[in-house]
């Protein structure tokens, strides 16, 4: 059971309080009617599913109920960072220590 840092509660809390909510930084298009079928398909279904660093959404559902974003390394299953939903994607190299 992971400990997850809620960026709103500012505490490390057990995974039981949280729910995963899919990949992060996939904004709903402002005007979906302008999208081609392929673009809309990509928005709906196509996800990166990386082996390694993944930007993803979590919800502190049994706590403050806020949605937030997280950077998780999927091989070792470790959180590198969590941040508020309105904050930009953090720089990976600063989190993993490799400046590549």
């Amino acid at each position, binding site marked *: *059971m992971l400990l997850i840092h809620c960026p709103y509660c500012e505490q490390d809390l057990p995974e039981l309080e949280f729910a995963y909510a899919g990949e992060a930084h996939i904004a709903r298009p402002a005007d*979906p009617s302008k999208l081609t079928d392929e673009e809309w398909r990509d928005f709906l279904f196509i996800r990166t599913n990386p082996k390694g660093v993944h930007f993803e*959404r979590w919800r502190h559902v049994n706590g403050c*109920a806020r949605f937030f974003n997280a950077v998780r390394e999927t091989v070792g299953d470790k959180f590198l960072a969590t941040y508020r939903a309105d904050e930009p994607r953090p720089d990976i190299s600063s989190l993993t220590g490799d400046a590549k």
Partner: protein
Amino acid sequence: MTSYRLQGRGRVDHGKPVNFTFDGKTYQGLAGDTLASALLANGVHLMGRSFKYHRPRGVVSAGSDEPNALMGTRRGPGRFEPNTRATIQEIREGLEAASQNRWPSLAFDMGAINDNLGSLFSAGFYYKTFMWPRAFWDRVYEPVIRNAAGLGVSPTEPDADSYASRFAHVDVLVVGAGPAGLAAALAAGRSGASVMLVDENAEVGGTLLSEPTVVIDGQPAWDWLAATVAELDGLANVQVMPRTTAIGYYHQNLVGLAQRLTDHLAAPPEGAPRERMWKVRAKEVVLAQGALEKPLVFDGNDRPGVMLASAAQTYLNRYGVKVGDRPAIVTAHDSAWHAAFDLAGAGAKPVVIVDMRASVDPALTDRAHALGIEALLGRTVTGTAGRLRVTSLRVNRMEGGKAGEPRDIGCDAVLMCGGWTPCLHLFSHTQGKLAWDEALQVYLPGRKTEAVQIAGAGRGLWSIAASLGDGANAGAAAARDVGLEAEAPVFGVAADRTGSGITLKELPTDRDPAKAKAFIDFQNDVTAKDIRLAVREGMRSIEHVKRYTTNGMATDQGKMSNINGLMIASDALGKAPPQVGLTTFRPPYSPTTFGTFAGYHQDATFEVTRKTPIDPWAEANGAVFEPVALWRRAWFFPKPGEDMHAAVGRECRGARASVGIFDASTLGKIEVVGPDAVTFMERMYTNPWAKLGVGRCRYGLLLGEDGFIRDDGVIGRIAEDRFHVTTTTGGAARVLNMMEDYLQTEWPDLKVWLTSTTEQWAVVALQGPNARKLLEPFVEGLDISAEAFPHMAVAECTVAGFPARLFRVSFTGELGFEVNVPARHGRALWETLWQAGQQYDICPYGTETMHVLRAEKGYIIVGQDTDGTLTPGDAGLTWAIGKAKPDFVGKRSLTRPDMVAKGRKQLVGLLTEDPKVVLQEGAQIVADPAQPKPMTMIGHVTSSYWSDALGRSIAMAVVVDGRERDGQTLHIPMPGGTITAKVVKSTAFLDPENRRLSA
């Protein structure tokens, strides 16, 4: 006492006899015995039958790695456990144990015929034997497999015990209380760190319990142990927990511990939990789990009386039990020599020490000669004899790498040692890498992923001196890592028995290796030739070899078999062991009861049952209940003598003829409030909301972004900036989550607040032509006449003196009202209306009648008539879409090519040709019943009821291009014959003009 118990020896209490039974026979052991040691003291070696071949088996080990001595243990009704390890279970007065996997008796077992059918059960037999013919599956293979599968029998009664769970946070968790673990706990404990020291055995001490002759700091091992335990017990910051198995090592140093609390007690305290699950979050973990001894792999190495040398040493020194009078020792490691010496010192007469190595430390052979034990070097072992107990050993000289002339040596026990495997199961749980050590021929811990130290034999350190020192260093390092000052204590050790050895594959034989039963995995009956066969048949990965042969897949998780299997597989593959790799260890470390995992989550605390404020009335009035999501809802209210069919028919008539009363409190309710509430509703739901007046309601349809129906419900506009949203009973939490998601992450600029109000409101529905007449006298502050308060009106008012939100809505097709009052008034409102309703023969109805009434009107239930693949178009709900709206959740998906293509399943009505036949919900529909099997299924029945109002059955179904099939006859093949039914485009079976609900 028998001749196998040595007076005054061991840590058992010779003054405290304990009686227990095994297979119905009473035996006596001593306090401190395990089941295995007590049986051995009685001369009983035969303790079980193997899984596949039903071969007679004796105890092999003295610990949790035991593959053979698994028993059913019982303590009265509801307290039966299969597969209890006799090597771990302590005896207690009255303990009942029974052997497993045998019929009719342990000594004579019919299943042993499998032993002669070995060729049928070779590697991959699951995959080969049960392939064909197809028809054999149902009648032969499956019953046979089910009958043979699994060791032991499942308990048949509910578990009468209770279980506990607890969280703990410590600086340092030490797993294993042998020399390394004790030293680590001392070092960390003295630094002031909070320390938890756990050990799976009944007593801490590990190897020291079996090695009393070692001297530590000038004290005999057991005196040093007592002093150390006393010091640890005296430290308030240290908790020592025997009988506690670390079962799993999870992320961020969370370790699961299963603690056995009462299984060793003759009379547990009333109400005491049987086991407790600890979830320990440790800043630092020290793994000091020691090493596991490997068997040697030779024909007949599974005969009762053949066991690990270290086990014999443990039975002797810890339990005062001699496993035999004339043991033979076969070994590839120095450690077994000491077992022989200890046995000789205790009065046994070891007949021979057979070492696979051509030369050993002369000190060992000298000692053997001095004790009169024959020592044979550079030999191989090629067989054993004896039916239910070993009687002789077949030993061959090695000549030019081949087994030469054999010699039979009589014995009553064979003590084997194939070297040692560092126990790294928990380390593997953390995805820690294992590194092959070429010199030691073992896997050692490599790269770490957690804040963990491995100490002692787990790092390939075989001596007690080295383990003590290593443990002390690990404990001190752990304490320093949590910011404390710590020093590693230094220990002076004398009479230590350091040893070394070699790692082997199966032993060479002069006999036909294809006939040899040289076991690797005793519990799953996997032999050396099975591994070689798997490789010959194309298995290359060790994971495939494991699954094909089932090696290491028994309940001991390959504790004994893993490395032997790997050595043989890598030899067969012609690769070095690290190139072949090791299978993955997974939690739990040893079998753990379901009760321990469940903890307090039993019965009512396993899953809550949600009840409405009106539930007690329903219970008092004879309701039959059904679960709906977590709710318990009144299903129907049978009168004396009525079955469900009769009760539902009466309830339907009651509602349609006069007035029915229904508890609708479980409906999900969400209050959507704020200046941007209407904008939010416009974006979330398909329907238009901007023009919905205050005081009006609308049916709302919610889609996912993929365009499929997610939920629906009536939504009332209470004020310009306030909506009362209802959802399906099961969908409330999901809908709120979805709304929150969009509000928080897509449209954070909207000023909207969402509140779950499901449990704030009790909802009483009155449905039927007399609903208004009944309700009107109780309503204050509102005119509810047909003109002033039409269908789909909502208003705040007072009902029966309670503040209320009154909806004029109908899920039955009748004139209907839903009265929402604060939950605490729900029961009183219900009783008031119930009393007043007597003059109208008011009829309480349950969810079944609600379903029938709505189906007669063709109203769908999301989740029953839809399944997550239906669009509004498929469900015939395009009227609920706000055509002029530029966007709403799911809108764009409705024009994707596949969503508008032909061939989609559409919701239609189905009327059976025989009106008396009620279709089965879920039944598949075909167009042509004469087509060959497998038939093309074009849809299925989603709802089906007997309609009292229509005097016939009705059904709803999703069917490919269903609406185009209006009037077509379709077929529903059932086991009793094919049913024919006609498609009707409209699902409104009753009053399609809606005259009744507009009354």
